[in-house]
């Protein structure tokens, strides 16, 4: 059991969760993730560790409410417990002095990229963060990012903040004015793929944090396998970070959708149950 210190909705459907996990807080490195089970019947859900405080023994997670597991997490309140939190898992991100590093975040990645932003800055890089959302009110975590990076750029689909467009459009503009030595993308698969494509065109070395399906997170089940550079790799132990130019994105999309029908069923099943409970019927 892991105690929740705080859960807050920082943008519609996006939550920032702080949990008590002293052992993880002591060990975690940027780019690593934990596996969370909301309750005993729950799935084992991988979530990146965005920030941590080794002294206080806590870790910070950002998550997007998309299905049954994240719905359950979103209903948890301060003081309640999570059934399990395991980690830190995965290889730490590649951090080094590269020069100018552009970080791109979309959906949960705007939060999750915080750890990498901080570490890249500490390693002596010039760090630019680009966040994207459909509209201004969906951009969150900007104040935190601003503390760690040199420039915080934004992209919105409706143009209500920053550039009208996506991370890759901002990247393209930025690359015109400055040389970029490395790009790092965290977020939904589609966004990472598009960004990696643009970065490739621009000749920028690119790392991505993949979010394949996972169960154990320790290399035991193989559900997380991805093809990178023609080789099968297990994202939970060989990744989640990979070279964005080598990932077989189509395969990743297809594999992520294996259980889509059941995921919808599960969501409806639990949403109905929760509603009934809310109305006092259960």
């Amino acid at each position, binding site marked *: 059991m892991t105690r929740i210190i705080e859960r807050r909705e920082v943008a519609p459907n996006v939550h920032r969760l702080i949990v008590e996990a002293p*052992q*993880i807080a002591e*060990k975690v490195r940027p780019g690593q993730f934990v596996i969370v*089970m909301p309750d005993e*019947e*729950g*799935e*084992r859900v991988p979530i990146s560790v965005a920030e941590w405080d080794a002294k206080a023994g806590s870790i910070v997670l950002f998550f997007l409410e998309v299905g*049954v*597991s994240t719905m*359950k997490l979103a209903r948890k309140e301060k003081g309640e417990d999570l*059934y*399990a*939190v*395991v*980690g*830190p*898992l995965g290889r730490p991100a590649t951090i080094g002095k590269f020069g100018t590093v552009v970080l791109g975040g979309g959906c949960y990645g705007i939060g999750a990229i915080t750890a990498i932003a901080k570490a890249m800055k500490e390693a002596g890089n010039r760090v630019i963060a680009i966040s994207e959302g459909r509209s201004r009110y969906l951009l969150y975590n900007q104040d935190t990012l601003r503390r760690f990076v040199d420039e915080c750029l934004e992209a919105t689909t409706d143009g209500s903040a920053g550039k009208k467009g996506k991370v890759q459009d901002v990247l393209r503009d930025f690359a015109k004015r400055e040389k970029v030595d490395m790009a790092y993308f965290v977020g939904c698969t589609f966004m990472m793929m598009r960004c990696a494509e643009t970065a490739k065109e621009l000749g920028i070395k690119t790392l991505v944090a993949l979010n394949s399906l996972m*169960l*154990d997170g*320790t*290399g*035991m*089940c*193989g*559900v997380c*396998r991805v*093809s990178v550079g023609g080789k*099968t790799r297990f994202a939970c*132990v060989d990744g989640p970070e990979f070279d964005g130019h080598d990932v077989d994105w*189509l*395969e990743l999309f*297809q*594999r992520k*959708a*294996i*259980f889509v029908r*059941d*995921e919808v*069923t*599960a969501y409806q*099943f*639990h949403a109905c149950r929760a509603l009934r409970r809310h109305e006092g019927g259960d």
Partner: protein
Amino acid sequence: MDEQKPKRHPRQKMPEQHPKVRARNFDEVPLGYDKETARREAERCLQCKKPLCMSGCPVNVKIPEFLKLVKDGDWAGAARKIKETNALPSVCGRVCPQESQCEGQCVLGKKGEPVAIGRLERFCADYERNEKLVRLPEKAKPTGKKVAVVGSGPAGLTVAGDLILLGYEVTIFEALHKPGGVLVYGIPEFRLPKAIVDAEVKYLRDLGVKLALNTVVGRTRGLRELMERDGFDAVFIAVGAGLPHFMRIPGENLCGVFSSNEYLTRANLLRSYLFPIYDTPPPRGRNVAVVGGGNVAMDCVRSALRLGAENAYLVYRRSRTEMPARAEEIHHGEEEGVQFHLLTAPVEVLGDENGWVRGLKCVRMELGEPDESGRRRPMPVKGSEYVLDLDAVVIAIGAAANPLLTSTVPELKLNEKGYIETDERGRTSVPGVYAGGDIVTGQATVILAMGAGRQAALAMHEDLTKK
């Protein structure tokens, strides 16, 4: 007295769920003996002076002695007799390959049928547990020493049970959220009800064993750290052989191709057969092929039926006599409607335009000269390729050593396959660090893992009292 004269009646059958019914549920298949049947079966034992059966058991369960107690109606006494050398009889009675171990050696088997040692072992242990006759043994005086056990499979549970009784403080570290290793994430409910594993774990907890679940040693906690910071005087590594093998044939990353570990973990550990009460989606398929011939493959193919498959195929490249699965499982699978494609090897997984499995291209095999394992080597028959129409494929061709922990301890000596090297007592190349079970031997059996645990527990005790 006619007490000495064995009874000449046949081996007693164990009632089972009807194949048609059980192939669609996850409840246990054999229903177990009742007291009278157990007594009648035990009466068949000749009480041999030199009991061959015992030599077939890797932990030398005192078979004739416990059988005598069963015959006399002292079932709990019989259970305790078994437990003198085997800590998990309700598990072993169900999953040991008895036909190649104890029962395989029983003299009665030479002419007729051997005594049903496994079934009786199961009966005694179930009786003792169900009647709440399990007693907590006396613990030795505290030694003041602490031992860490990494992994809660049969090897780890055995070491924990032995050392807590010898007066050690014992903590088990387990990566998953439930303790039991393969007993909970691999072997399905219909073969080994999880309530039994839970009861065994509770017994250890009652004895004072501490469990740290959700703790991945090598990540959450370092091995060195356990000894240097947390003050453990010794560590036993029993992390199993949990890295799935794939076949390296085209199409293995298609949607609908599962490793046996994924398939069984979803079904068992995450209880997806109870979906959507449990959230993890089950690995479904209408037409499912499982590749392999061992217990793992049998568990997958029988689970496939229970998860709703219309056709469940077992694709194995050798013949039935070479199948390493327990005889009973093969027999049960056959009764339940598993379709065997023996002497058949997969060549390629075929996919549709959406990246989903649509078939498995197979080739027929014939047996050639014996290979280094002594089994005749299967050779493909030219031009015999055919396609099985499928929507799911499960790869159950064995497992390898998971390097997650071992790679963090460079001074730990491994063999060329990545398994930990130990002496015959479980001592590794690092002082104070011991290992046993599948991470030393490669995937073997529950009872061998427990045997290794017992040896290591004794060695640890010896070494720690010398200090």
